[in-house]
């Protein structure tokens, strides 16, 4: 593999945030041995950052320290390098030392978002969930636009069975990224878990509205990817709601009047998806048929 194509692959990983640590370290060795750094010019620092992170990831601490040393020499006092040093410390140092290091950085510059996030993730990892939540809420109060942060908060809440709070965090995610059906589906599934079936049903229908733009017939094209999950969610909700029509909704959402039609449509879509094609019978078809025909 030529040096140019190696560098191209690395740049591609960088641009797409790919976590291919082993590959990056192997390719990085080649680049460092050859004249790659000179060829990269100003990009070499970004490469070194990527290389150091990947080396920490695979536990190659000598290479990581080497790359870190070069970065610290070039950019003394840079917040970006500070975070990298922190990550390196997380790998081997005791947790309290690292937390203290992050605390110091934060007192120096209270608005350092990257360090702040590292500290939150560390607190969560150490099991200090309460502190992590408090810290994260404060962080999100300052940096509202951080979708990642809101997702993390929702994740922490649902890990603690606090589905209502999780839904609230997810609602901020939806506001920030209203075009992403995956977040919407997550919202629907969290609502389903929180036993707010009406809300889950409606949101899952919104997901279908977003994801199945190019599907025109309910029986010809099978549902794919995210829509399969959404249809399952719809089917589950409508089935339960038909069985227990008086189920209350925490969000005060009313079930659609055409619930039976929705239920039928969902069944139809699922049967189309798990259909018998001329090549093969879809995996799990028997189970699906069995479940569909069983009375709830």
């Amino acid at each position: 593999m030529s040096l140019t194509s190696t560098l191209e692959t690395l740049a591609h990983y960088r641009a797409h945030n790919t976590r291919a640590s082993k590959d990056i370290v192997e390719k990085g060795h080649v680049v460092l041995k050859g004249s790659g750094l000179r060829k990269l010019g100003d990009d070499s620092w970004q490469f070194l950052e990527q290389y150091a992170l990947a080396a920490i990831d695979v536990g190659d601490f000598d290479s990581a320290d080497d790359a870190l040393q070069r970065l610290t020499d070039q950019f003394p006092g840079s917040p970006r390098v500070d975070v990298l040093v922190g990550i390196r410390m997380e790998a081997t140092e005791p947790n309290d030392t690292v937390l203290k290091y992050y605390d110091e950085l934060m007192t120096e510059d209270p608005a350092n978002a990257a360090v702040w996030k590292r500290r939150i993730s560390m607190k969560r990892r150490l099991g200090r969930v309460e502190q992590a939540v408090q810290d994260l809420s404060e962080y999100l109060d300052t940096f509202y636009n951080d979708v990642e942060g809101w997702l993390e908060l929702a994740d922490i809440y649902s890990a603690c069975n606090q589905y209502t709070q999780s839904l609230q965090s997810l609602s901020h995610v939806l506001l920030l990224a209203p075009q992403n059906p995956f977040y919407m589906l997550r919202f629907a599934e969290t609502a389903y878990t929180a036993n707010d079936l009406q809300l889950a049903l409606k949101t899952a229908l919104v997901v279908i509205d977003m994801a199945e733009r190019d599907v025109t017939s309910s029986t010809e094209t099978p549902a794919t990817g995210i829509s399969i999950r959404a249809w399952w969610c719809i089917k589950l909700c409508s089935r339960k709601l038909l069985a227990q029509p008086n189920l209350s909704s925490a969000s005060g959402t009313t079930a659609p009047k055409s619930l039976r039609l929705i239920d039928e449509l969902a069944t139809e879509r699922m049967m189309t998806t798990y259909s018998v094609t001329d090549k093969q019978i879809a995996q799990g078809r028997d189970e699906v048929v069995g479940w569909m025909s069983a009375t709830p």
Partner: protein
Amino acid sequence: MTSSLSSGSLYLDPQIRDWVLFPITVVMILVGILRHYVVQLLQSQPKKLPRAAIREQRALTRSAIIRATSANSPIPPNLYQSISKHLSDAFQSGAYLKDGGKETSGAPPNPLTDPAAMDGMMAGMKTQMVMMVPQMVIMGWINFFFQGFVLIKLPFPLTLGFKQMLQRGIETPDMDVRWVSSLSWYFLNFFGLNGLYRIILGGDNSAADTLSASPFGGGAMPQAGQPQDYQKLYKAEADNLAFSNGLYKWVGEDVEDRILRKYGKLP
């Protein structure tokens, strides 16, 4: 006709070319490059905003985000109401203000008393000085030594209107417009070297933007230093929020009918 004849017979000493024309040009290029590096040296790190200030600034974005989708909002009514109410309450009480909403003085803060704003102004002044001082020195140098020099003859004819531009410093009414005086040569360089700087120093160099930084250019003072009266902005934003509350409609409101209609289950 006579003027063109007389201009044709005008003969410039090659010494003028070697000792005046080239030196002025070279000095101006070198000063431009020097200025680029001096400005880089003077530029202080962009000031880091304290956390409270960032929060104050971004609070407005929060409300803008919820307003942006309110006519087709992705979140159900109860969540929308709670976020909207929370924001509007916070705006009314000034909870997002840097000092927690204690300050109630109506007058906007004086930029001269705020040290942070002062720093920004000083930085602007510094770069402006670096722009102006060399230009004044060069202009003085040209005016002192080469006043009234004719440096160069343009290879194309021009109308009389260009006389003002090309023969500054020479009060000869009937000289051909094609002759360029020293002071005019300076101005031609001053405005014309930007392209050259861009080639030598790269696109975003501080030598090329002479226009924006020179006293002749408009908008020399950066507007960023202007202090904002967030209390007022918050009040206005609270009104905007109330307005979009009226527009609010959940995207899931009648989504089941849309889906059913799409698959032909409803007429």
